């Protein structure tokens, strides 16, 4: 029996396994415990949302998974192998705009493709056009970045992250700066892309409804030190309507839990 269980575990390892990750930052003001013994398992094809107050280490965790930063202790495994550097299997959409102003829209999306061997330039252009079409920007391929609206910029960033065909997408508050209409449109788009292209997505947001609408699971963080406090599994069929009553039930439960942590912190 034991052997069988072991065997089963090996066949379906977590796509991403965060194991006891801690990270401290030393600054002039002292030491910040950005992450404290954080563990999180994410299976292939899962959509996981991270929610928590500002400064609880969500971006830091994403950076560590992306391979841009190293944890002080603990490790992150991707397909069972420890992550030590960035890789094209994990693409990141940053909290702030990271589009390159010296390239036009197409150039930005092609940047990651240029680093992929065994593609010629024509193929790269085709792939980039495909993803720009997917995010609804086929008409703006030659635009300069500063000519785009905030929502269009996020779409370009999404296309750029998707273009190298990563299996994991790390998205750090990608839609925070957008109006509700555009956001709802993008919720639909991201779910379609996620299902059609079989991605594993880790999605950071401050918007509880957004998290409940998108995630299979919503993971709650609390700050100082940054820890995972609670997890909510969202058992709703897809595609989900962000304005549905069932979803509202989930989001009010999550909001209540969040408020608890904040008042706890104030009490301390």
């Amino acid at each position, binding site marked *: 029996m034991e052997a069988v269980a072991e065997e089963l575990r090996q066949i379906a390892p977590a796509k991403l396994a965060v194991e006891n990750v801690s990270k401290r930052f030393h600054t002039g003001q002292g030491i910040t415990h950005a992450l404290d013994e954080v563990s999180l398992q994410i299976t292939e094809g899962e959509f996981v949302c991270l929610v928590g107050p500002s400064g609880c280490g969500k971006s830091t965790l994403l950076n560590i998974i992306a391979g841009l930063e190293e944890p002080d202790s603990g490790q992150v495994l991707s397909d069972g192998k420890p992550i030590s550097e960035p890789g094209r299997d994990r693409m*990141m959409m940053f909290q702030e705009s990271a589009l390159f102003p*010296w390239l*036009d829209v197409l150039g930005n999306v092609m940047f990651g493709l240029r680093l992929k061997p065994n593609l010629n330039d024509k193929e790269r252009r085709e792939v980039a056009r495909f993803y720009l079409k997917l995010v609804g920007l086929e008409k703006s391929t030659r635009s300069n970045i*500063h000519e785009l609206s905030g929502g269009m910029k996020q779409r370009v960033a999404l296309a750029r992250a998707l273009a190298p065909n990563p299996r994991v997408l790390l998205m750090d508050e990608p839609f925070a700066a957008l109006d509700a209409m555009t956001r709802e449109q993008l919720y639909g788009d991201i779910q379609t892309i996620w299902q059609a292209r079989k991605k594993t997505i880790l999605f950071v947001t401050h918007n509880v409804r957004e998290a409940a609408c998108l995630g299979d699971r919503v993971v709650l963080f609390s700050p100082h030190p940054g820890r995972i406090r609670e997890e909510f599994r969202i058992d709703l069929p897809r595609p989900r309507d962000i304005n549905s009553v069932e979803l509202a039930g989930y989001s009010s439960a999550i909001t209540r839990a969040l408020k608890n942590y904040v008042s706890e912190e104030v009490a301390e």
Partner: protein
Amino acid sequence: MKRLIASAIFFLALLGVWHALVLAKIWSPVLLPDPKLVGGYLLDAAKDGTLLQATLVTMKRLLLGYAIGIVIGLPLGLVTARFKFAEDTIGVLALGLQTLPSVCWVPLALIWFGQTEVAMLFVVIMGTLWSVIIATDNGVRNVPPIYARAARTMGAKPLYTLIRVVFPASLPFIVSGMKQGWAFAWRSLMAAEIYVTILTGFGLGHLLHYGRELNAMDQVIGVMFVIVVIGLLADKILFSPWERFLHRRWGTGKV
């Protein structure tokens, strides 16, 4: 078109004022020749080839020295921005020497290299190099780190990031540094050409110098005019396209 007409009217008016001043005979015509005389000199000098010859000699020195200065300066600037050791050595040297007016290199160049083309080249390189190093260094330091991080997640290695991300991201700084380097090089070359005779080629500076020796004010003003025109053309041909590109891409330049 409207702007062109405005320019044309302005410069014609300037000529008119000049001509009027000559007619008023406030200064002797030796000191202030009529615009027609200057035009006549320019025409003659253009016809017999002295002007073209001198321009070619000067431009060759300038462009060659400038190119060398940039080819050396760009990588050095990247290096000083990236490595503490380079910053403390080459960086400090560049900062110091950049404050030195580039004309001050002329005496040293003459002692080291004699009255040769190499001396001229050296002066131009010294005029260009330090500005380019400092501008590149400054540009690289001002690149938002998020660009390099984004590139790394897309699989860019450090060298690739330096060439394809850090370098283009600092272009606005680099281009203005190159422009400054050009101005320094151009000024110091003129000073050097006026100051010393190089037998392997008479440049525009020499023409200016001999204009003075011969008390030929029409030649002096004519050559000055050519020097101004070259400066303007260099700006329009060498830098304007870059600046337009940068403004278009970055969305800057409009208020």
